[in-house]
């Protein structure tokens, strides 16, 4: 028991240490990028009429007059102690500002990820199985078109059709004002209504990649001996496709999901912005415009941690689903 525990800890550390270095690297790269840029937040955020003296004072207060390395050291030291600074715009502590945005982002990303996983697998399997038929060709065409559309534009078009023209769904936002105190059920329905359009936008853009991938995998898998052997045993086609081919096709999915995460994270940013979805993405983009350094640093670090952990989890999941890797 102790030996296996020790082994796990060793394995864990072997993964953790490089990840920590990666995070350190990310923080350094992002910090330098932001602070080397011409212009500074003091001149951005404040009244242009402010006197030079006051500006200098403000810069001093924000620590912006010190050499870059010192600034970075300061920032790192604070972060390691759990102090991520305060938003230049709202004055809230960075972690709190981000945490406030987390639920909305989680709702959007978890629901879209779940639907992507649930829809792409059967679509890809079936179009691989029915290769070159009408079904396959339709799916292929639609996925290519979905992949080629600028997501923000797709979101705007959907908004135009379903909210402005047909008036079926709310244009944007999360919860109508006045509903904050209503019952959980009413709130959920309202949020779900607001969720439909952003969700559809994400789905149309992201179904394509995985579906194509599964199709390709399935075509390869169906030529394998073990599929022929399963047929030779008289198993039904459904069983062959949805048991024997499916699990094999699913294996690389976990890795793929890990690789897709960064894109999914950035993609969600723009969607949130368009639909005024009060998530991390919207916060991020407004922080970009306001040069809110502490928030931007926090966001970058957070999303990187998310991506690294995602990759990590997908590795673990891979070991778990593929019996050949122990």
């Amino acid at each position, binding site marked *: 028991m102790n030996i296996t525990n020790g082994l796990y800890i060793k394995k864990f550390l072997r993964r953790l240490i490089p990840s920590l270095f990666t995070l350190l690297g990310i923080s350094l790269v992002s910090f330098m990028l932001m602070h080397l840029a011409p212009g500074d937040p003091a001149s951005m955020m404040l009244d242009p009429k402010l006197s030079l003296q006051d500006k200098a004072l403000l810069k001093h207060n924000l620590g912006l007059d010190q050499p870059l390395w010192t600034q970075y050291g300061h920032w790192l030291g604070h972060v390691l102690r759990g102090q991520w600074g305060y938003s230049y715009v709202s004055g809230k502590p960075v972690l709190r500002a981000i945490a406030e945005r987390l639920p909305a982002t989680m709702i959007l990303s978890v629901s879209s990820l779940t639907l992507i996983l649930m829809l792409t697998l059967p679509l890809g399997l079936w179009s691989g199985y029915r290769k070159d038929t009408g079904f396959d060709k339709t799916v292929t065409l639609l996925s290519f078109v979905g992949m080629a559309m600028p997501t923000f534009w797709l979101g705007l078009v959907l908004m135009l059709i379903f909210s402005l023209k047909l008036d079926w769904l709310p244009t944007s936002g999360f919860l109508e004002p006045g509903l904050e105190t209503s019952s959980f059920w009413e709130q959920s329905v309202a949020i779900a209504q607001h969720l439909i359009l952003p969700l559809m936008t994400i789905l149309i853009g992201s179904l394509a990649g995985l579906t194509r991938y599964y199709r390709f995998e399935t075509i390869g898998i169906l030529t394998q001996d073990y599929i022929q052997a399963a047929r*030779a*045993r008289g198993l039904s086609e459904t069983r062959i496709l949805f048991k*024997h081919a499916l699990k094999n096709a699913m294996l690389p999915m976990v890795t793929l999901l890990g690789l897709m995460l960064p894109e999914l994270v950035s993609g969600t940013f723009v969607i949130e912005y368009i639909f005024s979805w009060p998530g991390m993405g919207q916060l991020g983009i407004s922080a970009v415009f306001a040069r809110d350094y502490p928030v931007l640093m926090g966001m970058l670090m957070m999303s990187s941690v998310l991506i690294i952990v995602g990759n990590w989890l997908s590795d673990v999941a891979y070991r778990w689903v593929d019996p050949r890797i122990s």
Partner: protein
Amino acid sequence: MSLKVENLSVSFSSGGHTVTAVDHISFEIPDKTIVGLVGESGSGKSVTAMSVMQLLPPQAVLSGSILWKGQNIMGLSNTQLRSIRGSEMGLIFQNPLAALNPVFSVGNQMIETIVLHQNVSTARARDIAIELLQKVQIPDAALRLDHYPHQFSLGMCQRLMIAITLSMRPKLLIADEPTASLDVTVQAQILTLLNDLKEELDMSILLISHDLGVIAQNCDEMLVMYLGKLIEKGKPSELFKHPMHPYTQALIAAIPSPFSKRSEVTHVLKGDIPSPLHLPSGCRFHPRCPKAFALCSEKEPRLEPVCGREVACFLATEATSNSR
């Protein structure tokens, strides 16, 4: 008569070319016999096996008939075929590891098959699976059931395949090069196992191999294939003593024997097996045949009965008609 193949032809067309892999072959497999099918790779052996199981890819074009217990199974729907596959005919492959799904445990795949064919509960199927593993001499059967295919040696995998196939109690077992990927000692074990099981279960076996030794030791009847054609068929004992077709002669002469010196090997075939895209005219073997004469490149010899066997060679048929 359990299996009767008549005038079977299989061709594949891709990119404007049509390749005929099997060309008008006919043979029978009587009950409780082992029929061997020999030939070089590319001769159409495996395609023949797969067409008997009706497992060729959709782009394959088949003609002729395959009668199973009097019923033509050619062109039956997948659903209809499912009642024949497994329960009537079983198939084992050249590479047993590739024939087992790598992501499911061996037990999972066995139990799935047993439940389907014997209509028993999963728990009962597990017991049956353990018995079967013991029957094919896999030690620690109960434990090994939960292992995955990659945890078994190739020889063990072939035993597993045999066990899975036997669980369906087929009347005909098609074994496509069942020992080609195995070590010599393991080969012998697998063949003995197959022979024992054949006796026990009253099956017939279609044994496909490029190894004449394997065929000679195990079969009641042997078929020799060259480029999609059957060129000689008869009892192995007779064919070995007096091969009539020059190709059969060459195959037998090429068997290395510890007592023959290298210089004594007289019949080494010239060249490679021709591409099926450009089949030779007349007898397909004539470009490589040491005894070919003018007629061979013009006319195709037919498989004709000669002295209790069948041969497709002008030399053989001529010799007998002269002596008559």
